[in-house]
């Protein structure tokens, strides 16, 4: 039996805390999610019972820690339906995963005159690494714009894709507008042009379809901390052929087969890409987070969150002077808005005085703000433990602030 989503709240100790004298209303989930007790306990238990450095040890702790770590690799592979656990590389997070690909792919496959395509909807972490790689390699950096609804302009993408294109990097869900991009279609378009695709799933893997074989992504990246797992851990999935073809990024212990002053040979997959001591504790925490998500029916999570988003969108729309940004075909878990005459920054601080946590600013998406010609937004973002009451608190808080300031 799957767990009831309305019970989720109780699993997160921080959600019952008080902030500035009010019960915490946490609506900053796109920045990072809170952690259920089971994840917190998994880390504590790990350190209290089996902590060890892994892969090279033959004492019991080392073996138990290695097993625990490798089991999570399998769990991740199952969660995103990778063809093999060897396609799962543990990184520090989405940003490092993207940098790994930008660097290694760039070294192996990008020459002067080539082109890399990203979109105007990207987080800086899926924008700047490609831009810098293009600078290094003498390649051109192309940006697919979004339209007035916040949807990507796929006709422009179609025109951009050419035999010069080496790679397309696109997010599945925009952290700033909440747009759910049609990644399956985008991948098909790119593949038809012979172009591999990196899908930034930082905002998607916990909210929507995350089957890498259905999406047919060549590279698929996400962060644990946005899906109830600890900070400090993330994933790079890549099709095995790419992992075989790419040179390593970070080098050092564990990724080496043989090394002499003259010559180096690398370890097999996935170890070739996991240099240095692995973050076993946080990987174990990631495993607990996947168990937690799997304790629910994923479709029920999706339905619940969609309902919550609709509710929130309607509720906010009734507030005079409040403008919600974007009107994409499909939106996920994110409500970006501003109030006439009140800076996003002020609104964030004033909501915080009532214990309501939202994020304000550019959300690491300056290209989006530039396109919208605004300095920033207030962003309320949802997770499965949020409720209609949270959104009502938000709406009341905003209304109260408007009343006070306009008075």
């Amino acid at each position, binding site marked *: 039996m799957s767990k009831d989503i309305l019970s989720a709240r109780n699993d997160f100790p921080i959600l019952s805390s008080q902030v500035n*004298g009010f019960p915490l209303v946490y609506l900053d989930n796109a920045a990072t999610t809170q952690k259920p007790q089971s994840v917190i306990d998994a880390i504590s238990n790990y350190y209290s019972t089996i902590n060890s450095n892994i892969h090279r040890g033959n004492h019991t702790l080392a073996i138990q820690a290695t097993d625990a770590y490798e089991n999570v690799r399998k769990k991740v592979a199952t969660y995103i339906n990778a063809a093999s656990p060897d396609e799962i590389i543990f990184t520090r997070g989405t940003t490092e995963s993207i940098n790994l690909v930008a660097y290694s792919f760039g070294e192996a496959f990008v020459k002067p005159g080539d082109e890399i395509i990203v979109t105007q909807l990207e987080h800086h972490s899926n924008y700047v690494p490609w831009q810098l790689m293009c600078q290094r390699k003498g390649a051109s950096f192309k940006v697919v714009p979004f339209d007035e609804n916040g949807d990507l302009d796929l006709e422009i993408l179609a025109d951009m894709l050419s035999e010069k294109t080496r790679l397309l990097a696109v997010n599945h869900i925009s952290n700033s507008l909440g747009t759910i991009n049609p990644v399956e279609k985008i991948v098909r378009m790119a593949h038809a042009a012979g172009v591999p695709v990196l899908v930034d799933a930082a905002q998607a893997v916990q909210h929507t379809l995350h089957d890498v074989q259905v999406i047919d992504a060549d590279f698929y990246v996400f962060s644990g901390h946005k899906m109830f797992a600890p900070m400090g851990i993330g994933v790079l999935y890549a099709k095995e052929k790419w992992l075989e073809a790419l040179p390593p990024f970070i080098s050092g212990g564990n990724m080496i087969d043989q090394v002499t002053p003259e010559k180096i040979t690398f370890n097999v997959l996935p170890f070739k890409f996991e240099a240095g001591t692995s973050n076993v504790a946080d990987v174990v925490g990631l495993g607990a987070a996947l168990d937690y998500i799997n304790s629910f029916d994923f479709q029920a999570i999706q339905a619940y969150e969609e309902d919550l988003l609709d509710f929130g969108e309607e509720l906010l729309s009734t507030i005079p002077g409040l403008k919600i940004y974007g009107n994409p075909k499909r939106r996920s878990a994110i409500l970006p808005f501003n109030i006439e005459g009140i800076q996003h920054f002020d609104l964030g601080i004033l909501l*915080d005085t*009532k214990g309501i946590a939202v994020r304000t600013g550019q959300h690491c998406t300056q290209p989006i703000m530039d396109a919208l010609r605004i*300095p920033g937004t207030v962003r309320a973002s949802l997770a499965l433990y949020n409720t209609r009451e949270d959104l009502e608190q938000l709406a009341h808080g905003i209304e109260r602030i408007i009343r006070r300031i306009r008075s």
Partner: protein
Amino acid sequence: MSQKPSVKEIEQNLIDDFGLMDNWEEKYEYLIELGQDLPEMDAALKTEDRLVKGCQSSVWFDIHCQDHKVVFSADSDSLIVKGMVAILNEMLNGQPAEEVLKADLTFFETLGLWHHISSQRSNGLTAMLAHLKLAAADCLK
């Protein structure tokens, strides 16, 4: 006496005023009121070169030196930052350059109000004060 009260006296008054508020909300509302009472800055002065870097919101400062005193007008598109500007205005506008150079942020910490801004090491408040001190130092040359 037409002389402005000392920085310390103004500080104490503000601490007393803010001490009357029960909670953060009231403190911020009071701060915003202070900002709303701030004399308007000439719109023509809100130029790129008068923008203070390092703030999450736009803040413009126009600073002069008169008789070794620091005189300025300022504005922000954030109501809260404008409130902070108003406090800086009340405390430091027209003060002798030496006083401005001695000003520090412990007062803001005492108010507590600033934890939203002051936790960032390179924050708007630091940047604004740095601007004023730069002008004060020039003033003494």
